[in-house]
């Protein structure tokens, strides 16, 4: 072996040994117990809170976080908006923090990921468009839509882009992890007295929130749970069931009651009596609204029973609809009966959650002609209402109740169009995140230079500085040549 070869062999061996040593050392340093992070930004914007870290550490083994980072809403991209880059930057940094601090595996899928992998993971998680973050445990999962995590301001027709007003990724991750870490998930009782089970799509929606849906046809007098959802009923209730419902409501447990057009008169009367203290009443008739067509509003068709509740029709004050109203999201409700105020007790506050437009009317269900007829009047009508004990009692969640005049929203074909409203309502009922939004304001640093400023800065950076340095190089070269 020549001297040169020996020298090379020595250097290469030393290099390999050194590299292995450094990698082993780095492996140790990468462990969470040796890791420290210093967040120099204001309000620790790029770190998880200690609460969230503790909650994520509690997650069962084989849990993971999956992020789908795709710009999906056109309005948030328009006019060169920075919403998605900033939001994804925030999510990525917090996921990195979660991975480092808790050792939780994270999977980030973005536009550079393999389409096959994206499809596989999305199908396995049951992802629907708009959902961007999932925490998954071996048995349960929680998904977040983009608007659950970020409150944005819409672009204006004048050309101003959308921007992030506030966000709550950290709080949401922490809350979801705490829910998932619970050995028993919040149980949602789905009462369907006629034995018609709820749709699989609705069950999946509940599971996606980390809740445990339990369809049932019975409700015992002292039965407990986190939430009761009454999925319509077509016959008068049995005495056991009425006792169970009375007991549930008297104890102040939360309840979502849906009573559609097909509910018999006796059932409606029974519910109105039961809900009297809460001051909400189901009214007779079917809500209709003119259909918007190219040639103007149209009546006389069953399509008028499809109500598009625009953002202005959502309560901007109530926690369950506040975010949706701010996000300018509309909801589609089909075949609904109206709701009204009744003489309730002063212990409950009542809020209309969904309201129709001014052109709506109540159509008689006996001989519906789907147009304004004799005795029918146009006006704003309530489609959904909420009640809550006031002042707040020491009962479970203060008797939170939401009444909705249709049960069709639970069906798979209608669910996608009112999913946002439904999920936000259920979260409020179950005392979830809507109560503690944990929003953190996000400040943008806009800089819109004039054309003149841009030209000046480009001249300095592209011509001035390099030109000056090149001049020094030439001078030195010239001096050396001399």
């Amino acid at each position: 072996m020549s001297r040169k070869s020996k020298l090379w062999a020595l250097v290469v061996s030393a290099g390999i040994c050194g590299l292995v040593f450094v990698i082993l050392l780095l492996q140790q340093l990468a462990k969470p117990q040796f890791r420290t992070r210093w967040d120099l930004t204001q309000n620790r914007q790029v770190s998880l809170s200690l609460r969230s870290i503790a909650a994520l550490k509690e997650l069962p083994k084989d849990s993971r976080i999956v992020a789908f980072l795709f710009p999906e809403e056109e309005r948030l991209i328009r006019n060169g908006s920075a919403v998605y880059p900033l939001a994804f930057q925030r999510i990525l940094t917090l996921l990195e923090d979660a991975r480092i601090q808790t050792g939780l595996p994270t999977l980030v899928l973005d536009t550079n990921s393999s389409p096959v992998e994206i499809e596989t993971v999305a199908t396995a998680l049951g992802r629907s468009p708009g959902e961007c973050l999932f925490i998954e445990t071996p048995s349960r999962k929680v998904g977040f839509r983009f608007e659950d995590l970020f409150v944005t301001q819409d672009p204006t027709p004048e050309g101003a882009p959308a921007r992030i007003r506030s966000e709550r990724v950290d709080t949401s991750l922490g809350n979801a992890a705490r829910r998932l870490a619970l050995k028993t998930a919040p149980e949602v009782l789905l009462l369907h007295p006629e034995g018609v089970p709820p749709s699989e799509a609705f069950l999946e929606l509940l599971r996606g929130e980390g809740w445990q849906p339990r369809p049932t046809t019975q409700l015992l007098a002292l039965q407990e749970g986190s939430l009761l959802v009454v999925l319509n009923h077509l016959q008068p209730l049995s005495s056991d069931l009425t006792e169970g419902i009375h007991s549930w409501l008297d104890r102040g447990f939360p309840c979502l009651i849906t009573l559609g057009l097909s509910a018999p008169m006796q059932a409606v009367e029974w519910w109105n009596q039961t809900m009297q203290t809460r001051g909400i009443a189901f009214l007779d008739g079917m809500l209709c609204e003119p259909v918007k067509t190219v040639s103007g509003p149209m009546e006389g068709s069953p399509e008028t029973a499809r109500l598009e509740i625009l953002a202005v029709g959502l309560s901007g004050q109530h926690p369950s609809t506040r975010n949706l109203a701010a996000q300018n999201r509309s909801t589609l409700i089909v075949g609904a009966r109206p709701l009204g105020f009744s003489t309730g007790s002063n212990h409950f506050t009542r809020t209309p959650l969904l309201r129709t437009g001014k052109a709506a009317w109540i159509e008689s269900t006996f001989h519906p002609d789907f147009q304004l007829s004799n005795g029918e009047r146009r006006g704003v009508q309530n489609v959904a209402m909420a009640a809550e004990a006031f002042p707040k009692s020491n009962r479970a969640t203060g008797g939170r109740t939401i009444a909705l005049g249709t049960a069709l929203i639970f069906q798979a074909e209608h669910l996608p169009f009112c999913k946002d409203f439904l999920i936000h309502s259920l979260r409020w009922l179950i005392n979830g995140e809507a109560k503690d939004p944990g929003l953190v304001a996000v400040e943008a640093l806009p800089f819109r230079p004039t054309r003149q400023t841009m030209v000046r800065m480009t001249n300095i950076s592209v011509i001035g500085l390099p030109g000056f340095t090149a001049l020094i190089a030439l001078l030195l070269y010239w001096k050396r040549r001399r």
Partner: protein
Amino acid sequence: MIPFLALFRKEMFSLFVSPFVYGLLAVWFLLNGLFFSFILGFPAVQNDLNLFPQYLFGSGLLVWLLLPSFPPLLTLRLFAEEHRLGTLEPLLSAPITDLAVVLAKYFASCLFFLVFWLGVLGLFLLLTLHGAELDWSRVGGGFMGAVLVSFLFLSAGLWASSWSGNFILAAGGGAAINFLLLFLPVLFENAPGNLGQISRQMNIPNMLDRGFAMGLFDSYALAYFPLLTLLFLWLTWVRLVSRRWVP
């Protein structure tokens, strides 16, 4: 210490009066100026300057193209020229330790590379002078990360320069190592098992993009760059002293 300072001064002087180095600096400023103007033209960046450090230091061409290529061009002469001119033997037999020789040359190149970065910092000051409001924790973090990466790449370039008297090998070898350091972890970060895990931990653009450029300092990243830098400096030292070990 005195021989070290003397050599350090000599190296600094030779760098500061080299037309080649200033030419290199001019090209660096020109390309950075172009990137700077280009990124500033992004509507998303104009809508929120918080994205600027991330785009420039984190995921921009500065990191993927300029950072791995320029440090070896600066260090290529440090040992290769000594080899070529035959002055390495007298230098190593002079009353100065081999380690001091390595460190003097390395620190001189590091200090000069700060001039490269000062120019880029000047661009941010230019932006401020034109009324832009910047989050200096992000800008400072981005600079800190970029400086650490460039110091690492300088050490790799120094090692490559110590291989022989061939300038092309010194520059090409150094650049190749730097590109490998940058690309290999990215290529294998999704690999299963330990390979994927190690690759994710050694992903330099991620450390910049999701760390320094966000105003976030991680003890791991702060240890990663100096450790690898030390490795290359040690290898350079081994390369020099091995000439004595092998008869």
